[in-house]
């Protein structure tokens, strides 16, 4: 029983960065900007959060700096995609490479620990809330152990999903944003700035990736190590496609992927009939499932029509 509780609680933890990155991608791509750089933004944010938190001794300052760094990277992507009408995939890949290299080089220069950042003290981390008084109550305790053992950033991630769904569907900004991802010319002729809308979307993506990165290095873990995002940004993209660019299905997809990652963590060292399953095999499962699901088990996935296409005011 305890194992299942642990597994579900871990699922929630593991899905937090996926959810944040996936919703970041949702905002960006619904506005027509393809974002391959979710991974890079998360990585730089994870590094900056751990560094700033180590230096200033505050998780909140770490978070703040992480969001700034991530938004800065997002703006680079925005400038390349919106103003310069560059290839968005190339720009995103560049962001990923830049982030991976920069984090290690700067980390080594600042902390001289081979790219790692110093281990954070408790006040430098977002620690899970604890409600020990609830844990012994039957049923309620089980729920509490699954759902009430997370840090504030995790709750933020889960709150972002309905908020984003609502904002996209019901607000003026959401309507215009969706329109600009489908037909930017329609938005332009309605007298609305295409570039301003897309910049706002890109900045939202930056903020969410910043939170995701901070969660990885200051909540899930207590320092930054190189490549610690381990492809979460790409899994988030897969989840986004899987969810057909909609918020609630995206939540479901991220929870599924988080569950697989949790199983991967728990099943390490497991054996079947005395045969020890290699760790690498277990770790591979979420990725294999991603490929299988994307290849065969989802119906037609329709991206926003204008995604990836720079808007040129030409008739």
């Amino acid at each position, binding site marked *: 029983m305890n194992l299942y509780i642990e597994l579900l609680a871990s699922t929630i933890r593991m899905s937090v960065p996926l959810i944040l990155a996936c919703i970041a991608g949702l905002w960006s791509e619904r506005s027509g900007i393809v974002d391959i750089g979710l991974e890079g933004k998360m990585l730089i944010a994870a590094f900056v959060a751990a560094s700033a938190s180590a230096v200033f001794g505050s998780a909140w300052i770490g978070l703040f700096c992480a969001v700034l760094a991530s938004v800065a990277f997002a703006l680079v992507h925005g400038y390349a995609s919106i103003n310069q009408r560059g290839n968005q995939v190339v720009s995103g890949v560049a962001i990923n490479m830049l982030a991976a290299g920069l984090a290690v080089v700067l980390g080594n220069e600042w902390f001289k620990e081979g790219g790692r950042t110093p281990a954070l003290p408790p006040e430098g981390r977002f620690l899970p809330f604890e409600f020990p008084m609830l844990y012994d109550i039957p049923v309620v305790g089980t729920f509490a152990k699954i759902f009430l053992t997370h840090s504030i950033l995790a709750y933020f991630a889960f709150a972002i999903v309905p908020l984003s769904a609502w904002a996209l569907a019901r607000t*003026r900004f959401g*309507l215009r944003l969706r*329109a600009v991802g*489908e*037909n930017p010319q329609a938005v*332009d*002729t*309605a*007298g609305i700035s295409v570039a301003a809308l897309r910049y706002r979307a890109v900045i939202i993506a930056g903020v969410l990736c910043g939170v995701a990165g901070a969660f990885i290095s200051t909540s899930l873990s207590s320092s930054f190590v190189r490549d610690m995002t381990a492809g979460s940004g790409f899994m988030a993209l897969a989840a986004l496609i899987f969810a057909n660019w909609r918020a609630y299905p995206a939540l479901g997809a991220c929870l599924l992927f988080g569950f697989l990652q949790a199983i991967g963590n728990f099943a390490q060292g497991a054996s079947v009939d005395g045969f020890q399953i290699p760790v690498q095999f277990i770790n591979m499962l979420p990725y294999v499932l991603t490929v299988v699901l994307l290849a065969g088990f989802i119906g037609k996935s329709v991206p926003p029509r204008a995604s990836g296409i720079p808007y040129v*005011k030409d008739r």
Partner: protein
Amino acid sequence: MTPAIELIGIDKRFGSVHANKDVSLAIATGSIHGIIGENGAGKSTLMSILFGFYQADAGEIRVKGKPVKIRSSSDAIALGIGMVHQHFMLVEPFTVLENVVLGAEGGRLIGPALVKARAELVRLAKDYELEVDPDAIVGELPVGLQQRVEILKALFRGAETLILDEPTGVLTPDEADHLFRILRTLTDQGKTVILITHKLREIIAITDHVSVMRRGEVVATRKTMETDVMELAELMVGRRVLMHVEKGPATPGETVLEVKNLTWKDRKGIARVDNVSFSVRKGEIVGIAGVSGNGQSELLDVIAGITRPASGQVIFEGKDIGILGDPRHMRAEGLAHVPEDRQHRGLIGSFDAAESAILGWHHLDSLGKGYRLDRDKVIARAKSEMEEFDVRPPDPLLKSSKFSGGNQQKLIIAREIKSDPDLLIVGQPTRGVDIGAIEYIHKRIIQLRDEGKAVLLVSVELDEIRSMSDRILVMFAGRVMGERGPDATERELGLLMAGVAQDAA
């Protein structure tokens, strides 16, 4: 009464192109004002300036007598100017309501705007015959209704003056008639309509005033009552236009193409071409008339080798080539094909003109040996074809999609005619082509006939069929309803097109 819109001395250059030269125009309130001109005459540029897409280099715009500056579409909308673009500015996955509200939400949340828009749509539907289901997904609506959504968008924003850019290009005749009724209702209620078109008939049928543009200038403005098609055509092109093609009598020779009992079935097993037989001889133009969608396209596809017939024969110079179903083989045998849909089948928009000009003939040795393509030769060939066929601009390196419809068509006709075919099959040679180019294309096709070649012409334009053909076949529901001579009356052909058989095929 002050005019709704006045344009005074509008001037606009794009680099070396002088798109609008000192254009002055006054649009009377409550009238339908037509602006007519060939493609590239500057109509669209002028309207784009009025709608804030471009800024004029010089000149003044007045709305209801007051000088205004229009720097963006939102300025134009605020001044009560609405535009229905040729290519609709609609968000296809959105509902009608969402499209109408986009950009005019009136608050941070869209809920109240949707409620207001729904009520407004009901009112507009009643007032102007503009019924559309507010909850329909726009992408799933037929084009006629999508256009209605565009009009509704403009009216919802309080447009007093409505600009329509080539509104009937995508409409069926019925839909076009409905649109004209709507426009009339709009002007009856005090709105002003500017109608941009290159179709003379529409101008005569619906407008109150008409301005003719040619090479960036307004060359004349007339009351529609006081002018006619001939005068307008002459003003558009700048010289007398032969509305009727001049050609001598045909001197048919031996049979080149013989189609015997040809049947073609679609995937559902319905015969779209049903037991069709006819022949085409050297030195004659055989025209196939019919309302679009009665099997002409499928017939062309079979003869051109794009699809294979279910049964029957296509005998070309004594050989049955129908069973081959191979366009390249057909071309090698001496058959050239100008496809109906030039954008999708005639050329590749992103290729430069020189590349589009060799499509289907790219394997010829004259363009390079083996796997190698000699680019210099390709460009030289395109250059000479473009000069001979008066393709403008004569730039072989310009992207195919940047040419106007007429010039694209000339490029394709040049390619096919220069291949020296024994039989030219042409589908809709002048669809979306301006008058000057139509005249030229007709002349070249007749010249081909006079050189003793065979021509099979398919067109939904009855005028074109009647003036070009030496023999006319009429198709209805996949069958040939009858054959007539070039002197057949419009009524006679019309009855056949409607499926009223007077004789068996």
